[in-house]
């Protein structure tokens, strides 16, 4: 059995909206081991983003246990959390969140700028390697506005990879993309997963879930299903079988 990367127990998250308390997560528990490719499914408002934000140390649970790579997050201060985000987590957003008017290479370098262990030369080199890995080695000088949505998301993926995180968290990373581009991105994720990177991928599209090894389904802040995928599809194969568009 691989070691646990994520372990949550009875995790709750409540939001106070005026007098009303919204129970976004009502006490969920699971573990994700190294090398898994997990998709989190569920309808809109079911708590997927809330959960992923907590997993990514961007938000704090109201109660419950969360351990990442053996470290209990509750005991960490803001600076230590920042270091965890920097060194252990690669976060990918639905809306890419790239810095405007900034080249792809510099966008990818960003996490390394906040890592004092990395020298300037090493930073450039690693950013370039990450861009190559996502197939954008020839686009490193392009700014986001000069890139397509799929390419922008690849830059964001390269950025999430550049610090060699123990896991990648993606929140509807294909949500803004067409089917073909989504499959290209999923194929990239599958490649990365094969290299051993743990991936947690939030989506509400069932076909995307078929590319992962495990699926957790949320409903109204509770886990209603958690199953291993016996029939993992290859995104590359699916991509090849898509009808060719002519434009």
């Amino acid at each position, binding site marked *: 059995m691989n070691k646990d990367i994520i372990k949550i127990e009875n995790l709750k998250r409540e939001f106070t909206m005026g007098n009303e308390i919204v129970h976004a997560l009502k006490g969920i528990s699971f573990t994700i081991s190294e090398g898994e490719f997990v998709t989190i499914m569920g309808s809109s408002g079911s708590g997927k983003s809330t959960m992923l*934000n907590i997993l*990514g140390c*961007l*938000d*704090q649970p109201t109660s419950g246990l969360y351990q990442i790579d053996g470290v209990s997050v509750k005991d960490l201060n*803001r*600076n230590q959390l*920042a*270091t965890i*985000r*920097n*060194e252990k987590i690669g*976060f990918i*957003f639905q809306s890419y*969140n790239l*810095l*405007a*008017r*900034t080249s792809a290479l*510099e966008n990818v370098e*960003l*996490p390394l*700028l*906040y*890592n*004092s262990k990395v020298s300037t030369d090493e930073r450039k080199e690693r950013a370039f390697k990450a861009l190559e890995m996502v197939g954008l080695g020839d686009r490193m000088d392009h700014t986001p506005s000069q890139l397509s949505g799929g390419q922008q998301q690849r830059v964001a993926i390269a*950025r999430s990879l550049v*610090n060699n995180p123990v896991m990648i968290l993606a929140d509807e990373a294909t949500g803004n993309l067409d089917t073909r581009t989504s499959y290209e991105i999923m194929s990239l994720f599958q490649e990365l997963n094969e290299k051993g990177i743990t991936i947690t991928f939030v989506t509400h599209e069932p076909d995307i879930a078929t590319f992962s090894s495990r699926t957790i389904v949320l409903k109204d802040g509770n886990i209603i299903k958690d199953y291993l995928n016996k029939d993992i599809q290859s995104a590359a194969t699916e991509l090849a079988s898509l009808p060719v568009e002519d434009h």
Partner: protein
Amino acid sequence: MRLLNLFKIAFKAIVLNKIRTLLTMLGIIIGVAAVIAMLAIGEGSKQSIRSTISSMGSNMITIRPGEDDRGPARGSGGDVQTLTYKDYEEIKGKTTLLNYITPVVNGSGQVINGANNWPSTIFGVNPEYLDIKVVGLQSGSMFTDAEVQAASKVVLLGQTVVDNVFPDGEDPIGKLVRFNSIPFKVIGVLEEKGENTFGQDQDDVVIAPFSTVQKRILAIDYLNQIMASATSEDDAPEAVTQVTEILRSRHKLLDNENDDFTVRSMEELISTFSSTSEMLTVLLVAVAGISLLIGGIGIMNIMYVSVKERTKEIGLRMAVGGKGSDILMQFLIEAILISITGGLIGVTLGLGSTIFIEKFLHWPTSVAMYSIIISFAVCAVTGIFFGWYPAKKAAALDPITALRYE
């Protein structure tokens, strides 16, 4: 986090937002430049008034007929006839604090040399006049006490008069000129003094023996003025008191009666003018202060808005591992770079416009070091504070709150 990286990030952000940077700087630039230029004008006019007045003789004491009506812009005593040659003699006889003293009568008229004539003012004085006014001669010599006694018809001319009645450049010494049809022999030319701060041409004068002017030209028996010089600048105030006492007793004034004359030292005159120009400076500083304030508000606005609109960027930076302190430092460095660059441009512009004002508008200016320091400091502090304050608030947000900010 290495500081160098933060500098890179901050520099990059500045370059990426040229317009915003420029607008922020504009407030600083205008504020700093305005303060420097305004203070330079105020300071310059103050100094120029001071130096004009002291060049007129800083020990000088003037005694005019008539009650003190204060204010610099008064006439030459007008028709008040309370001052006489006897007063002059009495002061001269009794004073212990005056070096030189002369009666003064003056009148205007035409200086004529053949076909050339020029309207000017003639001053009737005794030889001590030159010592009191601290004015020398270019050529020739001053008349003597004997010539005053004899009411000799000799004159000394100012350069402006020479230029106008001897336009061919001939030497006026020994020549005859007429003043209001009375012929005078020119015996000297006064040193050039140029214009004073009030724009009066100090070289447009004619000087002749007191008795000649009083009797032959003006036909009066009173004095327009008595001029004297205190033994030292420090003695001047006491000399004023002494002269006042001498004159009061000579004029037999009762305790409840006001002086029927006015005694003034240069020092007093200087302070009258200085306070006027000080008021000017205060006004200019107020104007400059307002522009600095408006500049500061501009900086505040732009910094505040820029941090707000970059909240999402701040969220992203935190999401990829930026600490609150990193974010804060980045914005602080940005604010410092912008403020200092803007401040330096402002100082340059302020000095530049000061030179422009001096060269092309011919206003006297004097750049005060403290104006540079104060304006620079105020702008830098405003810029840095209003860059730092919203950034601190943003850096204290949870990453997810910052990221969600629209």
